[in-house]
């Protein structure tokens, strides 16, 4: 008797499982017991997410399975997750990745619901990055850009009392810092790996160049223009000055994490994001009152260089089975309370124009000063393929800095590779 019942239950379970493969219930509604939320490493402080998840759980009776993902290899991880039968319900996407995921139809169309996500106050640069053919496939989360993070004590000791106002002054400050710490063989006045390509973008834009140009819907690489080449030359000049024992030319800022190196105390400055400073301070708390930041200086004295507007969007995978609950979660996150917390944490909030909370510390001030100058990589679904895998910009930097290729050759090769990838 017992055995038969077990068999019946087993058969029923099997039938449910099999039929479950074919149907895709969009919006589980009342049945949803738990949603899975993937946010990225360093994007929202634990204080914010703890409060947010707690409020969401008690208001809706739905558990939040909150997971923090690393940026390294996220493209691959998302691809696998989105193709699985149980994808996460809320994901965070880099603004340069969003277009390609939306173009492939993997993200839910949120155009009709934009109102409940505070769409009137969305940050322009991020809004563009998640809009494809007039439809919105996400909600802006936050934006941040790189500033020069520096050790106030070391700069003061080297006789640099005011933050440099031009590129020449900056190199000057680097040299002074290097001279003042000549006794430490491992000292790096500026920690600059050879493949810090977001910083290269700043220099290229500052010289009036760009990565690629669009002509009649067709993108072609523009790294071989004289302006872009001037950007490469500026990078080399700063890289050469950065330290006696330079960072290798063939690594980027993520391997090893530059914040970890900054935390060792042998580094005077780094070009980094606010969360990277946060990471360094967490590892070495006494850095908190010894660090500050200034915008990346332009070659024109008194102004700051354009910066890559990095940032993230939040999206709901098209294959999510808990769309309604996920929308509620996004609505809560876009409310002013949590946007203010984001600003306090040192990021430009995505769904609130109020940045008063941002300018409360030095890094936030530098961020707010340079973010109006923010630019983005080409907004096209094809761009993600350039960044993932073997990035031609990184290859060009390494080849040029090590002397493996001439400037003309390196930039031409990178330009051709970009044209090919975006064709």
């Amino acid at each position: 008797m017992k055995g038969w019942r077990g068999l019946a239950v087993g058969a029923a379970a099997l039938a449910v499982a099999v039929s479950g493969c074919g149907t895709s219930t969009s919006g589980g509604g009342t049945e949803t017991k738990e949603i899975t939320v993937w946010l990225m490493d360093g994007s929202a402080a634990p204080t914010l997410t703890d409060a947010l998840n707690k409020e969401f759980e008690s208001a809706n009776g739905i558990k939040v399975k909150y997971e923090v993902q690393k940026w390294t290899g996220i493209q691959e991880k998302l691809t696998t997750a989105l193709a699985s039968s149980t994808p996460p319900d809320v994901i965070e996407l880099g603004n340069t990745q969003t277009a390609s995921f939306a173009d492939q139809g993997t993200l839910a169309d949120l155009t009709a619901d934009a109102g409940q996500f505070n769409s009137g106050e969305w940050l322009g640069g991020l809004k563009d990055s998640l809009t494809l053919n007039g439809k919105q496939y996400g909600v802006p989360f936050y934006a941040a850009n790189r500033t020069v993070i520096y050790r106030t004590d070391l700069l003061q000791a080297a006789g640099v009392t005011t933050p440099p106002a031009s590129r020449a002054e900056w190199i000057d400050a680097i040299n002074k810092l290097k001279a003042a710490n000549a006794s430490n063989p491992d000292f790096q006045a500026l920690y600059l790996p050879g493949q810090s390509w977001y910083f290269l973008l700043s220099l290229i834009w500052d010289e009036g160049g760009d990565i690629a140009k669009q002509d009649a819907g067709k993108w072609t690489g523009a790294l071989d223009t004289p302006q872009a080449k001037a950007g490469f030359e500026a990078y080399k000049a700063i890289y050469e000055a950065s330290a006696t024992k330079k960072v290798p030319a063939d690594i980027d800022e993520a391997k090893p994490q530059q914040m970890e190196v900054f935390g060792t105390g042998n580094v005077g400055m780094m070009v980094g994001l606010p969360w990277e400073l946060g990471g360094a301070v967490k590892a070495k708390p006494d850095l908190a009152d010894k660090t500050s930041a200034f915008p990346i200086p332009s070659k024109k004295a008194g102004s700051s260089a354009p910066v890559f507007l990095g940032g993230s969007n939040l999206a709901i995978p098209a294959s999510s089975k808990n769309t309604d609950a996920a929308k509620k979660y996004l609505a809560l996150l876009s409310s002013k309370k949590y946007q203010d917390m984001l600003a306090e944490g040192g990021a430009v909030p995505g769904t609130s124009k109020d940045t008063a909370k941002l300018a409360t510390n030095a890094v936030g001030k530098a961020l707010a000063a340079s973010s109006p100058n923010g630019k983005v990589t080409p907004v096209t679904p094809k761009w993600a393929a350039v960044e993932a895998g073997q990035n031609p910009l990184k290859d060009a930097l390494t080849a040029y800095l090590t002397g493996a290729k001439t400037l003309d050759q390196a930039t031409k090769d990178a330009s051709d590779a970009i044209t090919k990838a975006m064709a």
Partner: protein
Amino acid sequence: MTAVKTTETAAPVGNIPPALPPAVTGGARKRRRRGGAFDRALPYLLLAPALIAILWLIGWPVVSVFVTSFQQLNLGELVRGEVVWTGFENYVTVLKDERFWEVSLRTVVFTVSVVVASVGMGLGIALLMRVLTPWVRIALQIAMLCAWAMPILASTTVYQWMFDQNYGILNKTLVQLGFDSFAGYSWFSSGTSTLSVVGLLIIWQAIPFLAFSLYAGLVGIPRDLYEAAGIDGATGWQTFRAVTWPEIRSLLMMVTFLSTLWDFKVFAQIWVFRGGGPNGESTTLPVLQYLEGIAKSHFGVAAAISVLMMVILGLITFQYLRKLLQTEEGKL
């Protein structure tokens, strides 16, 4: 890549069934006199679960890769579960790309060099082990076991530290020895040099298995053969040619064949070192497949590359396979 891997890991399983039959067939023969159809089918029925499992594990991924290679399968199709047939388009894309040919040639050269070096050194160590005093031999074997037991990524990380431009022990030692030009020398400045370091790591990882296998073969050679050769006044080299070589030739061929399979599809070490860089110069076929499939989400193209990889691997190992089968037949 999965297909190749499955084939190779499942191969030992495939060898087990032939070992079983004597008992089974023996039993069946007795019963055959009574002549039941069920009795005759019994051995096959007993084999069936294992056979189905093997076919499922090996056959399905291979078929799946083959089928995918004729489809347009990008992220969108994958998520929506669509099937878009494109015929030979993926193959045309891959074969028309001159990079594919460049990478294929590089992969073949890399595989051959690594296999020759690792099998050669493995054989050398195996021969050495036979003449060592027991204590030294045990020390050597323990050292090799430790090297063998080390996870791939851990040893890759250690190698990265060793070859680090600024802080690596290798550069520091070379400078201490008076080679000042190695201060801040980059071992990863060109594809050849990067692949040489990766090759060194792979050889280091492969030697324990090769040395142990070949040593086992050497131990099995009867001592009196060597005594006879000694009485005939043969030199060391002549003894090796006349006694050792014929005995271990088929084993050597077997491990060479296995090494070729393993080294051809090496991915983790190459990717972890420099992501196939600098400038794509250390990109091999498995890396190219990863770039197309995972980084660009063109799974159909990646599948076409893996089918072509299987073809290339078949071409490289064709001679080995044939010789291997011939020697076995000759013995039988």
